[in-house]
């Protein structure tokens, strides 16, 4: 559990817009350890999807390093990249949009097998795909279906099966259940949990659903406006969040317990646009504890005694 699979160092992704640079991902550092589930939680526009796609090399980062097997994967050539695609799987948010509407389930699942030469013959491919489908709780009859002939949950299973087909080491999951109903979500979560055990996988999971991230992750990072504001072991952060944003965010979660309801609004206002972010601390305008130093100096991630890191001048 301890060796790092991927290390992200000073990763930045800036976009140019008419009113100034958009800092979608701003100086993010993190490690993904082998065998863990690392969760990123944050509200819309915090840069979590951009971060994930940058690590996956689906978006070229502006600067920074992503170290995998001692190599910076931002610098590798096409051939190496293709090898990397076998190791890193990706499941995207919208199960419907992620499947080619003109391909049957069989075609969709046979593509990764062909690209990475996993199976040697047509027979091999068929057997492999049928086995995979059964593991996903689907049947042979689904093979000849097109995406629009499947339900949301079934489509997401196909998405996961596509990622699993080539035996990756790590799968990047971009809110794979946010478009699904809760009862379907349960099934997908169980499926992911089982696949993780069966295939020794590492997960990088992003979501805006805080309870979900809590349930699934070993370690989490909380993102706000392109930056990680708090990172560490899930139980430590949940039991005692330190960063004012994390605190507010956790307290905004609607609670399914009739004895506990949100009594007070902990987060004022809304996430500002990531263009021309304020100097100093990004969060200071929504923060009750903001002082002079927050205006002048950008807080760096600091390690606390319990092992977590927080980017706040209070600590």
């Amino acid at each position: 559990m301890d060796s790092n699979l991927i290390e992200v160092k000073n990763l930045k992704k800036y976009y140019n817009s008419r009113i100034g640079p958009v800092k979608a991902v701003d100086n993010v550092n993190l490690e993904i350890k082998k065998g863990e589930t690392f969760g990123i939680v944050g509200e819309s526009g915090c840069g979590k999807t951009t971060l994930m796609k940058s690590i996956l090399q689906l978006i070229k980062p502006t600067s920074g390093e992503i170290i995998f097997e001692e190599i910076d994967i931002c610098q590798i050539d096409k051939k190496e990249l293709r090898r990397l695609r076998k190791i890193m799987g990706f499941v995207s948010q919208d199960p419907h949009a992620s499947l080619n509407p003109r391909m049957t389930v069989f075609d969709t699942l046979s593509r990764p097998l062909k690209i990475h030469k996993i199976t040697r013959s047509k027979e091999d491919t068929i057997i492999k795909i049928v086995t995979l489908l059964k593991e996903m709780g689907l049947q042979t009859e689904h093979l000849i279906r097109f995406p629009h002939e499947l339900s949301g949950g079934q489509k997401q299973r196909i998405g996961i099966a596509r990622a699993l087909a080539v035996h990756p080491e790590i799968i990047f999951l971009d809110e794979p259940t946010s478009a699904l109903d809760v009862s379907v979500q349960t099934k997908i979560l169980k499926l992911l949990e089982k696949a993780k055990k069966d295939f020794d996988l590492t997960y990088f999971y992003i979501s805006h659903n805080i309870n979900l991230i809590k349930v699934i992750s070993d370690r989490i990072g909380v993102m706000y406006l392109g930056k990680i504001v708090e990172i560490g072991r899930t139980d430590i952060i949940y039991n005692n969040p330190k960063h004012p944003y994390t605190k507010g965010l956790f307290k905004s979660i609607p609670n399914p317990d009739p004895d506990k309801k949100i009594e007070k609004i902990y987060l004022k206002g809304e996430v500002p646009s990531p263009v021309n972010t304020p100097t100093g601390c990004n969060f200071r305008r929504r923060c009750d504890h903001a002082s002079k130093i927050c205006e002048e100096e950008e807080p760096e991630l600091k390690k606390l005694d319990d092992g977590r890191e927080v980017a706040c001048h209070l600590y």
Partner: protein
Amino acid sequence: MATDINEIRNEIKSLKQKKNSQLSLVWLRFKKNKLSVIGLIIIAIIFFTALLAPVLTPYNPYQIDMTNRLSSPSSSNLLGTDALGRDVLTRLIYGSRIAMLIGVLIVLFEGFIGIIFGIISGFFGGLPDKIIMRLVDILRSFPVIVLAIAIAGILGQGLFNVVIAIGIVGWTTYTRMVRSKILVIKESEYVENARAIGESTFSIVLRYVIPNAIPTAIVMVCIMMPTALIASATLSYLGLGVQPPLADWGSIISSGRNYMLEAPWISTSAGFFIMFTVLGFNFIGDGLRDALDPTIKRN
């Protein structure tokens, strides 16, 4: 796990038999639209009469009979005769051969160029896109028919010259439509997922982009066909199309023009032929657009 390859194959086979093929689904949906079916019937009638012209009509379209000039519609000449005593209906039926041929050639010519340019421009962007799109802008800034007349004038009469004269501007419509469709496909999540599993650019274009752009292209063809027909009829009306005595709808209208008062049936019936064909293709195009989109669920 009991996964016997033959068992699976048989299962897939029987599943496929039970399931309606994609094509039959398209037909099922197409059929629901009454106007489209009417359109299809019109085009089918015109197509088959053109194909079977010599069997269907007792007259020779080039047979001049000066004793029977400008006779009005009767049981022997259903749509009357023209100034040279030729049967108008016969000439119109033979004319539909030319019209269909020219129409298909034009659509193939402009469709081929337009779709390829559209794919290059939409998918690769950058400099090729800039060059292609500026060329499109330039060509489209000319009045289409004037440019076609000029080109036909330079190249001279003849079937293939008509195709070139009309197609030289026509492809730009395909390019624009296909390009905008591809821009959407390129940004789609399924293309991103394809990149994430390691698909090459070539494979993405071949397996993801083109299959999803095909319905757009098919509908384009049905919508562009009438435009091509009208343009070619216009050219031959102006005397720049196929050479007489070959019968062509445009030239029939043109030759009937001088006898509009004594023999209005010549020009009018040719006009109706063009109108029905154009309507037919438009109806089919409308129906296909809906039928080819698997996601549209209608009442």
